């Protein structure tokens, strides 16, 4: 069943650096979605009956929900029956070292410039690589196990830590939350589970590289991260996908829970295939990401660099339930070609002395469409809540668009919140100055854009920051002038 061979001629395409398809036989279900498909997924994943029922309940709910249409994005209606909901690489051996990994897979990572070995040794990063929907390589697990950190695929977690997973799964993003969250709950096939025990600082940065591979399979990842009292974890998520003509749907759900004094730092670099210059193809990235600062003095920090996908539709959010909790959102989003992004955050202040910071930088070039859509809600009991929001847009070219839709709801008089937004373009003066100092126009733009985004890049872990800057330069290549 190698649906991928037909696309082989697309392998080499200079326009999209990461556009190649790895030929691995996929065990794929035929397209379509019904209760039987969900039962099959659940059975293949060897899940407990409880989980099957949970999925079915989500599916029944999803059937009654209308597809949302409020975002400032446009796409043809999605035929959910035309998508195959399960695709697992046939070989799924338990691996202890990289030698056991399919060499073609390793080759894929090498092409992406993220050799596992090198990362293992140099960057000290444990990588749970998700190839399509099933984890095929997990490294550093024993080292993490020493300190009691659980870092595994969510399927494994459902089997091996059923009680722990079921206690938290769906508590932050309930299956009924929204259309795509319900769909995800019904059909998710893999993802990551992280549990950091009490008073533990995760000894390394955790990272998962996602790749969408087999044609016509939607990717429905589910990530659940629990940071118990006094713990710390930094999680990196990076994405690339092969070039396709057909739109691929990605509807992931990420749930974070931070207990008393815990900190979760979640960083994303998203560089999925954005479609060609006419907007053909490209990934639909409809993601629900939400974290709850459940405990006092807990902190959740989202950092994202979004350069890929035909459509990005995501709002990493923080529910600040615990007193003195902190929520942060740093974002750089680039849209060019015909890319559309409707992204932002929600900060829900429930506890006392909760604080949140939002810094959103949008860069729109060519025919890119971009919206910041954010909500800051300060509930009646959130004494002394504090929010600062800054969203800036940079426009390059006269056919792009940038919008800001901030929602601010305050029910407590002790709240202090500020919101600022600006929209501007790179001024001729700035460009002239840089060029007069000997820079090419492209370098000058790149430098100005990097300066514009610096506040966000500073929040990224080192290796990611370098990668993000590179990505930004590549993304804007040819977009100017």
């Amino acid at each position, binding site marked *: 069943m190698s649906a991928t061979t037909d696309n082989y001629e697309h392998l080499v395409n200079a326009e999209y650096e990461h556009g190649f398809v790895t030929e691995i036989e996929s065990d794929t279900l035929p397209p379509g979605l019904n209760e039987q498909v969900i039962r099959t997924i659940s059975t293949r994943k060897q899940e407990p009956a409880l989980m099957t029922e949970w999925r079915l309940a989500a599916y029944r709910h999803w059937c009654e929900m209308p597809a949302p249409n409020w975002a400032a994005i446009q796409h043809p209606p999605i035929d959910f029956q035309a998508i195959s909901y399960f695709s697992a690489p046939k070989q799924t051996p338990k691996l202890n070292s990289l030698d056991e990994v399919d060499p073609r897979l390793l080759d894929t990572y090498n092409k992406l410039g993220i050799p596992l070995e090198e990362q293992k040794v140099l960057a000290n990063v444990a990588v749970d690589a998700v190839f399509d929907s099933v984890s095929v390589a997990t490294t550093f697990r024993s080292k993490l196990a020493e300190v009691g950190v659980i870092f595994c695929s969510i399927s494994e977690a459902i089997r091996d830590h059923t009680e722990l997973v079921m206690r938290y799964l769906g508590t932050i993003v309930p299956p009924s939350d929204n259309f795509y969250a319900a769909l995800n709950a019904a059909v998710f096939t893999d993802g990551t589970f992280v549990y950091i025990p009490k008073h533990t600082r995760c000894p390394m940065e955790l990272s998962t590289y996602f790749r969408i591979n087999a044609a016509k399979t939607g990717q429905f990842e589910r990530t659940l991260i629990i940071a118990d009292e006094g713990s710390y974890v930094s999680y990196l998520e990076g994405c690339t996908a092969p070039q396709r003509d057909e739109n691929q749907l990605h509807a992931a759900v990420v749930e974070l829970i931070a207990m008393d004094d815990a900190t979760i730092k979640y960083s994303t670099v998203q560089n999925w295939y954005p479609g060609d210059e006419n907007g053909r193809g490209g990934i639909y990235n409809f993601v629900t990401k939400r974290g709850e600062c459940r405990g006092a003095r807990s902190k959740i920090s989202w950092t994202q660099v979004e350069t890929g996908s035909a459509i990005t539709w995501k709002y990493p959010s923080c529910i600040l339930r615990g007193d003195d909790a902190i929520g942060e959102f740093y974002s750089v989003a680039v849209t060019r070609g015909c890319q559309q992004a409707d992204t932002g955050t929600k900060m829900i202040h429930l506890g006392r002395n909760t604080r949140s910071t939002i810094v959103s930088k949008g860069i729109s070039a060519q025919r890119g469409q971009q919206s910041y859509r954010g909500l800051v809600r300060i509930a009646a009991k959130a004494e002394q809540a504090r929010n600062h929001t800054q969203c800036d847009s940079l426009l390059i070219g006269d056919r792009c668009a940038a919008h800001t839709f901030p929602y601010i709801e305050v029910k407590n008089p*002790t709240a202090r919140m500020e919101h600022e937004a600006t929209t501007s373009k790179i001024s001729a003066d700035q460009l002239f100055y840089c060029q007069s100092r000997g820079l090419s126009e492209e370098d000058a733009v790149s430098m100005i854009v990097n300066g514009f985004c610096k506040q966000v890049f500073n929040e990224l872990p080192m290796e990611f920051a370098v990668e993000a800057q590179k990505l930004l330069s590549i993304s804007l290549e040819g977009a100017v002038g």
Partner: protein
Amino acid sequence: MMTSVSNSNASIHAMPNTWLSAAPNQLAGNHMTDIKQARSVALKQVLERGLPTVKNEGWRYTSLRSLLAQNFICTPSDDVLTVNEEAHTAIETALQPALETYRVVLINGRYAPQWSYLENLPSGVQIDSLNAVLNQSPARLAAVFTQIADTAHYPFTALNIASCDDGLVILIDDGVTLERPIELLHVSTGSLNQSVTPPMMHPHHCIQLGTGAQAQLIERFVSIENAGVYCTNAVLEIALSPRAVLRHARLQLESLNAFHITGLHLQQAIGSDYSGINIGIGGAWSRTDLITRFIGEQAHCEQRGLYLVGDQQIMDYHLDIAHQVPNCSSQEQFKGILYGQGKAVFDGRILVAANAQQTDANMTNNNLLLSRNAEIDTKPQLEIYADDVKCSHGTTVGQLDPDMLFYLQSRGLTRSQARQMLSLGFAADVLTTLAPEQLHEQVINQIERRLETATF
């Protein structure tokens, strides 16, 4: 044809038939086919589309339930002007302060010549009632009446156009500068008899300034003391010709029994200059839509506002500033003071269309929450399709600085006085643009009185 919308669709409310004029054929101007046609289009729109629920993005924070709970009835007849002696005195009082103006008074939405003063109008200026103009010389309003208002997106404007029968008309010829301000007073009594269902009024005003004309309009909504329940659903259509200048003060000082809706539709031609100040103090439930469309370059629009919202009040301001052409500038500044269980909504949208290069637009919304149960929902939006623009918006929500309160109290002021002083200080930069002096004083007095009697 009158059809009622089924209520099964949860995203709209059916339009209560009694809100519409009972005698649509007798409405002013309906002898003209195009006016009749425009009215029937508006009627069809509001009947078919119904009234919005909170599921509608523009109404998500403002529910129509309390409005729909009232059995409002549209009052077209002239007997609203026949008021008893007691009400007569009350109206006299409500007209204060007396200003040096050309004055048009509407009692319960009807033009009341006996209270109005329109003598010695300079040539080139026509001020009259809408009813008279539509019946006698409707051609004079051909460029304004139903031409500027957006009935497709504003259901209450459509309702108004379908049912309006009176209002104010101001037509100023090219190059005329009117030194003395024009005053427009809406005085409402509500239903003075408890057994009578509360009235809904649809005053409609048309204002057209010729090329280079200049005028100043002071618009006040007041109620008589002990006024009953009523609803004002006002619409203004304002057309500014090239280089026309209009200063517009709007004071919504209705009673706490009143429901208030305004749709102000403004169209600005090249080089025109509009400057508005909106004071919202009264009304139990109020909604104001300020809509600006630039049709010529180099035009400038300013909208300022101050809202004071306390117990049992909900006040909603929506701004929609559409920069459809290049080189225009707009500035919006709204400030809010909230206390008690008051709830305010601010939604400002700046749209910059793809060719509207060199747009300069700036919006700020600052809110002061004085007490525990007040609520503010604010949403300043930028929607930008052009790259060579300067656009910004800023929003703040905060409270009085305890140190400042303490300082003033240490100087011998009571807590209430200190609170008043600081609140007025907060509002000062908006209020300073309010002229003439008597009006400024009236507003400050009202704010002081309200803050004095408020519970915190």
